[in-house]
């Protein structure tokens, strides 16, 4: 068997270059534009890590909100005692651990059952945290009195987003990624071919959860007061799925491009058309799904004349 290149040189160079360019932003952009860039990066990280698992295996997960929120709450609880980078890392790990445990319980379900279950996870975790907090600390939510500099937050999110992209590329080129794709194509066949589908699924689920949690942990410092209803916002889950699928969930570049386009477009519309922008967004989305079903990625994939995967 030929040697497998996990991270092709061209990709690595491209990522490194963009990393360097993007890292300059805090000194070039004003606060608002920096925040906009931050949003783009956040959704890039979320969408890419979502596609890594759900795009490959076709297990449509709506649990991003839950993982993001868990990470955010880890920051809420731990920020005062841990340093910021440690909190981010821990947020990712707690989310991953949660995903592994939950995954072991529910990953035998498919399709709509899986989607609905993951959808409710955000609500479940939110209520659980509220209950535990209320009972044992007598209060809900945490106030962060001191927060890191905007540049620090930005660079941290940049690092996490880049890591997500790198992870996604490596996974796709590895046997693990092949296993995930095999599960997506035909799970039973993958099993008969010797893939431990259960472990693969749990691993993929947990890995994508790690990045969502880390991003949540990183972003939470921007809100000063972190309480369950704010951080377990289902819209983040929707938007992630939307972006990844609109971009083309079976690719890496698709969700990346879509996250930037979507974040900028939403912001532009929101600022320009204060009362109509959601309608415009909804119409655009429907048109896109109906007339460009392969997602944005199919735009350049078609040019390669290779058979595109539908989805």
């Amino acid at each position, binding site marked *: 068997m030929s040697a497998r290149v996990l991270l092709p040189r061209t990709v690595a160079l491209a990522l490194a270059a963009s990393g360097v360019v993007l890292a300059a932003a805090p000194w070039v952009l004003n606060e608002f534009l920096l925040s906009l860039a931050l949003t783009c990066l956040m959704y890039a990280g979320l969408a890419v890590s979502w596609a890594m698992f759900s795009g490959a295996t076709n297990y449509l997960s709506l649990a991003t909100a839950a993982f993001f929120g868990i990470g955010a709450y880890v920051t809420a609880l731990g920020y005062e005692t841990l340093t910021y980078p440690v909190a981010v890392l821990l947020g990712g790990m707690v989310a991953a651990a949660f995903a592994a445990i939950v995954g072991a319980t529910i990953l035998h379900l498919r399709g*709509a*059952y899986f989607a609905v*279950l993951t959808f409710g996870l955000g*609500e479940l975790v939110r209520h659980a945290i509220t*209950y535990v907090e209320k009972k044992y600390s007598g209060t809900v939510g945490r106030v962060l009195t001191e927060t890191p500099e905007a540049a620090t937050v930005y660079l941290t999110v940049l690092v996490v987003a880049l890591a997500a992209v790198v992870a996604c590329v490596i996974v796709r080129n590895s046997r693990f990624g092949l296993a995930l794709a095999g599960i997506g194509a035909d799970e039973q066949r993958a099993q008969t071919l010797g893939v431990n589908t259960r472990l693969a699924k749990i691993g993929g689920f947990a890995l994508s959860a790690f990045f969502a949690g880390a991003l949540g942990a990183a972003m939470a410092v921007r809100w000063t007061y972190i309480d369950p209803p704010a951080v377990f916002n289902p819209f983040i889950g929707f938007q992630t*799925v939307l972006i990844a699928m609109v971009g083309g969930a079976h690719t890496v570049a698709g969700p990346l491009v879509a996250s930037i386009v979507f974040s900028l477009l939403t912001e532009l519309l929101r600022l320009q058309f204060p009362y*109509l922008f959601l309608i415009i967004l909804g*119409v655009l*989305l429907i048109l896109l799904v109906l007339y460009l079903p392969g997602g944005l990625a199919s735009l350049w994939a078609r040019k390669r004349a290779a058979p595109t995967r539908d*989805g």
Partner: protein
Amino acid sequence: MGFWLELAASGLITGGIYAVVAMGLNLQYGLMRIMNISHGEFLMVGAYLTWWAQTILEVNPLVFLPVVALVLFVVGLVVYRLCFRPIAKTAANVEIVEARSLLVAFGLMFIVQNLAYLAWGADLRGYTFLSDSVEIAGARFGANRLLVFAFALAASLALLAVLKFTLFGKAVRAMMQSPTGAQLVGIDTAVLHPTVFGAGIALAGVAGALLSMVYEISPSMGEPYTVTALIVITLGGLGSAGGCLAGGLLLGLVEAFGMHFTSPSLKMILSYGVFILVLLARPRGLFAR
């Protein structure tokens, strides 16, 4: 009425509300695998129409119910034709239909909700109808809640009867069992699908109309109901009308008893826990076909 019976009755009534909310979505998903998460938005529209009729036109909400059903049925037909039929035509398999209909439904959600904000504003609205209490065996319940429960039962039974005994119902079941086979014997999806989709939207609107008698309404009220509907139909078994009713009632009971024995704060955790447990034991829901 004994304490436990009253508690159970409370739970069943709330469960009836859940079942009513879920019925329309169940039809759409069961037949066409359309994951219509904008379901709650049409519920909201039904609620607003009824409120508007009651407050501005001073029409009795019950009398207005058929109007809501009709209006939303037509809306459903239009929405199906514009948004979902193209998907069914071009998708290679059902999973793709599910995924794409999910995205389209997101778009619909944005559009319908925002239209509501433009039309009626963000303020809370409401009216009260049949708020008097009804006494049953010593226990008292709000008349409007009992009405919703009665409707849930009646509609579910009616739906089950239609599915079992009428030609139309048989066609629907045939389509659910085997789309190709059904088409081979001449069942026309071009008529069936829009009709069922429209019926689903109509049911959503009627659920909203009934709920508007009990709860306040706002443009953002739809989403929590969509979540409830999704849980109920998954619990009951996707596509099963009987399962939808059973799932809703079970959820209501679990909540009522759970809230009593532990604490109301744990309501969500309990419902969810039961949900996961049921799916562990029966991965296709309680009444899966």
